[in-house]
């Protein structure tokens, strides 16, 4: 990990992304109470009234007053959304009208009783799902909730009150809340209110008091609510602290290290270290020392699990090689400036052999060593393999070879002994051990050394055919022989293991190089990838499937053609998970382990390019560390190659786009020229006619020309919008100027309507493209003017709240055709009975322009008749103080010029 104290870029990025998402989404305010009757709805309505007074557009989506008078009074002056009628069997049910609520786009929507289950036939099963949709639509929602409806609290509530709550709200929704406000009331007061009949009316009050509303229950619920809120506050505080501390994520220079071995104890050591690093606020390493001992499948599994856990918990996983675990650990620790090493306390101490902890402590020097008593973790899923006392089948052969060689050599030496003397056989034995040790493993080698020593003693040292040794000299010779044979054998075996490991690494490096070369340098990416996958298959012993993401960053339903097996639909589900979560998933992992394959995300520094699915051939029980590392390395290489491909593609795509854009602009220009020139000629000619322009025929030509001109303008604007040539030019603009300009631009049609402009007096300058917004507004005004009867008023209102500008046009015409409120923005939409002369493009263009500005437009009918159109724009408002009067001297100079 990093020594310096830079902020973690991922954390920063995550925060920025969170903020961006929150920017677009609506905010959720939850009013939490311990039980019905504490005054949540009351508090919600108070809040709503306050916001309405602040100038926000507040809409009551659904509020249950339960016949409480104080609450009903607060509803006055608030706009209430009519409930939706849902036919259910013989009777109709009333339910919250989600679609209309979204269409009306209030600044704040009131939705009571979050845990409510919707009437059958509604879009969502639960009301909180409605709320989620509202939030995604960018609408701020305030809602109420009782603590017993929170999913995580349900068990406790049942234990305490004996009531099993059915209607629950997931905790994740509460995590999305921008603010949770607790309405608290002492139990005595609540009981008082209950007896006064303020909570439930009539008989229900009595029933309630005897059932749920017992003092004990209420106290427990109150505690739950208080505690829940307190925890939430605590977390917010932590977040703030984290955000403040983000410039230096680690408090200290401490760095912990834990050794991970193939034992069930490792997991508890890893967890301990994680907690300690959390306390110290420091980074930590998990180190695996690969020795020369072969590792069984079961141990592999334990190891993979331990290292996986460490990785998940945020450790940096280090892989080191060495026979002496303690020495290697210390070496790594010194190398990485570790301040504290965590080792497990052995449960049995051997009298003779120093434990790992002892040896680490002995060599630790200035590094602290923490010896922790581990708790035995989950045993391996794999069938327990008895630690073998006897040799495995592979080794029996090696014992046989050792025995055979010794027997043969003894035979040969027996023949030679009279000639060469009894010491030569010893050297022959030594040579044989040395040569054989390259081929066989450790224990057979020791067996061979011992057997040779015995054979030499028995057959060659006088007295022969006994194990007795006659002279001291022979005794010494024998001992030295045995020692030399043993150590030589040991050394050779170790050399051999190292060599095997080296060779494996060499193979992997080589394969990696070949993968990179074939994938990156191949002129055809498809072939190159196929070649690369073949290499991976040969190294890992597997089948591989490659799924490359599409341009829209989703995974296709099919693997890349280079794949050597085709994953089925459920496998692709695993692949999608791995892709979305940027984590390894599938077989041999904790996520979806039933899958056939293990899926590795192809991750580069900036993005995930796809996933690589590995189906190991044979009945491998685990994906060992080495193979996993190798696959990860391959994945990175493939990801880089794919990313490069992607960039090349993107660049050429951009070039094509630019070309076609230039073409489109030219085409637009020439089409405008061709259409507008004759129009210009006709108009100028009519004007030039002077007195004869009053001729009724000429008047008709004039009217038709104007209509044609509007149509041409509309079509050109539409084309421009659809070919995305419209680029908003942001500038500060004055809403007064905007509205007046729009009325003027709406044309002659406005002349026959009194226009009432109502602009909030304190409205600041807004940053937007004035020309586009003006045109959009003018189109709406023109539409209203054309569709409403002559001399009926048109009201133009501008309001602002937060960072939102709301422009409303209201007319007193026939209104929008019911049920077609959103269709009026469609291209060439003409309402039935529309007056002649329209193009059916005006509103469509208005919507296009507003959307190009990042806003939205909606239309509905006012309950008192007439249509309402509303432009809602999120935009930057000018802070009031900077008006440019800050350079008096330069201005005076400028005035002199």
């Amino acid at each position, binding site marked *: 990990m990093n020594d310096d104290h830079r902020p973690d870029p991922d954390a920063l990025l995550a925060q920025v992304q969170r903020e961006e998402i929150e920017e677009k989404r609506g905010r959720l305010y939850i009013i939490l109470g311990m039980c019905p009757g504490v005054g949540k709805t009351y508090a919600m309505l108070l809040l709503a009234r306050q916001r309405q007074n602040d100038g926000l557009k507040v809409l009551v989506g659904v509020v249950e007053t339960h016949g409480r008078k104080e609450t009903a009074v607060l509803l006055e002056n608030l706009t209430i959304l009519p409930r939706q009628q849902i036919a259910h069997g013989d009777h109709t049910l009333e339910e919250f009208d989600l679609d209309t609520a979204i269409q009306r786009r209030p600044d704040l929507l009131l939705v009571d009783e979050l845990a409510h289950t919707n009437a059958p036939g509604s879009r969502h099963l639960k009301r909180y799902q409605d709320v989620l949709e509202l939030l995604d639509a960018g609408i701020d929602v305030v809602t109420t909730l009782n603590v017993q409806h929170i999913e995580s609290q349900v068990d406790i509530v049942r234990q305490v009150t004996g009531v099993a709550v059915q209607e629950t709200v997931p905790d994740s929704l509460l995590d999305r809340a921008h603010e949770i406000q607790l309405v608290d009331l002492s139990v005595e007061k609540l009981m008082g209110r209950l007896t006064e009949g303020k909570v439930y009316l009539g008989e229900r009050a009595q029933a309630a008091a005897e059932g749920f509303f017992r003092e004990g229950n209420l106290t427990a619920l109150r505690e739950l609510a208080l505690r829940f809120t307190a925890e939430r506050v605590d977390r917010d505080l932590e977040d703030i602290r984290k955000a403040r501390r983000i410039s230096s994520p680690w408090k200290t220079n401490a760095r912990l290290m834990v050794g991970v071995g193939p034992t069930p104890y490792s997991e508890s050591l890893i967890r301990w270290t994680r907690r300690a690093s959390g306390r110290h606020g420091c980074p930590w390493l998990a180190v695996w020392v690969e020795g020369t001992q072969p590792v069984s499948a079961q141990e592999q599994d334990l190891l993979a699990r331990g290292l996986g856990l460490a990785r998940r918990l945020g450790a940096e996983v280090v892989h080191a090689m060495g026979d002496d675990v303690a020495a290697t650990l210390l070496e790594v620790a010194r190398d990485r400036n570790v301040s504290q090493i965590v080792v497990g306390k052995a449960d049995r101490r051997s009298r003779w052999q120093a434990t790992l902890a002892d040896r680490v402590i002995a060599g630790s020097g200035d590094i602290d060593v923490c010896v922790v008593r581990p708790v035995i973790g989950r045993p391996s899923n794999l069938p327990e393999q008895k630690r073998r006392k006897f040799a495995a089948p592979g080794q029996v052969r090696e014992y046989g070879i050792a025995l055979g060689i010794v027997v043969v050599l003894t035979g040969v030496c027996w023949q030679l002994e009279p000639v060469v003397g009894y010491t030569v056989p010893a050297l022959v034995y030594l040579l044989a051990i040395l040569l054989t040790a390259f081929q066989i493993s450790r224990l057979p080698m020791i067996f061979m050394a011992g057997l040779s020593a015995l054979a030499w003693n028995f057959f060659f040292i006088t007295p022969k055919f006994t194990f007795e040794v006659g002279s001291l000299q022979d005794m010494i010779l024998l001992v030295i022989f045995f020692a030399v044979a043993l150590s030589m054998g040991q050394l050779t075996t170790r050399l051999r293991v190292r060599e095997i490991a080296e060779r494996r690494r060499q193979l992997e490096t080589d394969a990696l190089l070949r993968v990179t070369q074939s994938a990156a340098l191949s002129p055809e990416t498809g072939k190159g990838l196929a070649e690369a996958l073949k290499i991976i298959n040969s190294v890992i012993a597997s089948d591989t499937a490659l799924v490359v993401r599409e341009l829209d960053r989703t995974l296709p339903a099919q693997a890349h053609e280079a794949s050597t097996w085709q994953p089925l639909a459920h496998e692709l589900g695993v692949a999608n998970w791995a892709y979305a979560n940027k984590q390894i998933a599938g077989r041999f992992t904790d996520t979806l382990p039933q899958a056939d394959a293990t899926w590795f995300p192809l991750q580069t520094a900036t993005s995930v390019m796809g996933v690589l699915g590995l189906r190991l051939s044979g009945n491998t029980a685990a994906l060992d560390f080495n193979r996993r590392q190798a696959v990860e390395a391959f994945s990175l290489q493939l990801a880089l190659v794919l990313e490069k491909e992607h960039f090349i593609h993107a660049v050429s795509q951009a070039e094509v786009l630019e070309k076609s854009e230039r073409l489109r602009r030219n085409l637009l220009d020439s089409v*405008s020229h061709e259409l507008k020139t*004759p*129009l*210009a000629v006709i*108009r100028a000619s009519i004007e030039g006619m002077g007195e004869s322009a009053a001729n009724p025929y000429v008047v008709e030509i004039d009217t038709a020309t104007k209509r044609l001109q509007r149509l041409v303008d509309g079509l050109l604007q539409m084309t421009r919008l659809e070919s995305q040539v419209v680029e908003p030019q942001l500038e500060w603009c004055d809403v007064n100027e905007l509205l007046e300009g729009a009325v003027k631009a709406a044309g002659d049609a406005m002349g026959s309507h009194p226009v009432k402009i109502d602009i909030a007096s304190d409205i600041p300058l807004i940053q937007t493209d004035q020309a586009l917004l003006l045109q959009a507004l003018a189109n709406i005004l023109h539409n209203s003017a054309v569709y409403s009867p002559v001399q009926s008023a048109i009201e133009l209102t501008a309001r602002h709240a937060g960072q939102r500008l709301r422009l409303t046009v209201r007319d007193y015409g026939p209104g929008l055709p019911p049920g077609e409120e959103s269709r009026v923005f469609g291209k060439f939409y003409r309402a039935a009975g529309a007056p002649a002369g329209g193009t059916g493009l005006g509103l469509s263009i208005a919507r296009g322009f507003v959307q190009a500005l990042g806003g939205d437009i909606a239309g509905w009918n006012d309950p008192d008749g007439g249509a309402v159109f509303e432009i809602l724009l999120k935009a930057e408002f000018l802070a009031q103080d900077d008006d440019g009067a800050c350079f008096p001297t330069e201005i005076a100079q*400028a005035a002199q010029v």
Partner: protein
Amino acid sequence: MTALIIDDEIQIRRLLRLALESRNYTVREAESGRLGLQEAAFHRPEVVLLDLGLPDMDGLEVLKNLREWSDVPVLILSVRDQENVKVAALENGADDYVTKPFSTAELVARLAVIQRRRHGNDAPEIVTGTLRICLDSHEVFLAGEMLRMTPTEYAFLCALARHAGKIVTQRQLLREVWGQQGDGQTHYLRVYANHLRKKLGGKLIIQNEPGIGYRLLDPVG
């Protein structure tokens, strides 16, 4: 007075000739940019009507070329109605911009405005409608009454009044009033346009052309 029409459409040229000749202009025509530049060099017209979409070169190029050696008033006459095209033309030295289809009356009025400016350039005062600005004493009179102005308001009004009736782009205004620091600060313009509108009380109109600039108009004239 000589007017030069540079437009590739013969019908437009014929119509403009009719309209202008009836108002005592002598009209010369050119059907391409190259010919137009030649005409302008040989005959020194007093006003140029220039189309942007010419067959041989872009009208903007013609304008730039023309501005290298001549300060003849230029009125752009084009079908292109996007703000950025207009701003580009105005900032490259065009005096005003009229989009096709156009109203002949408006066109002639604009022509008159851009030519008028060429005369009263060195006068010690600017007069537009009932507004009189004394440049040496920095005093502003509206219908005979003196108006109190802050230095910024004064500079802003001068910048507009000097080109009365003609559009002044936002960038020109900002540069003229605020200097280098003014670049991009379009909100200054909105604020001062409002201040001035209040002081002028409707006797003169400060008209905003969205995305382009401002125009000082005399409602009577």
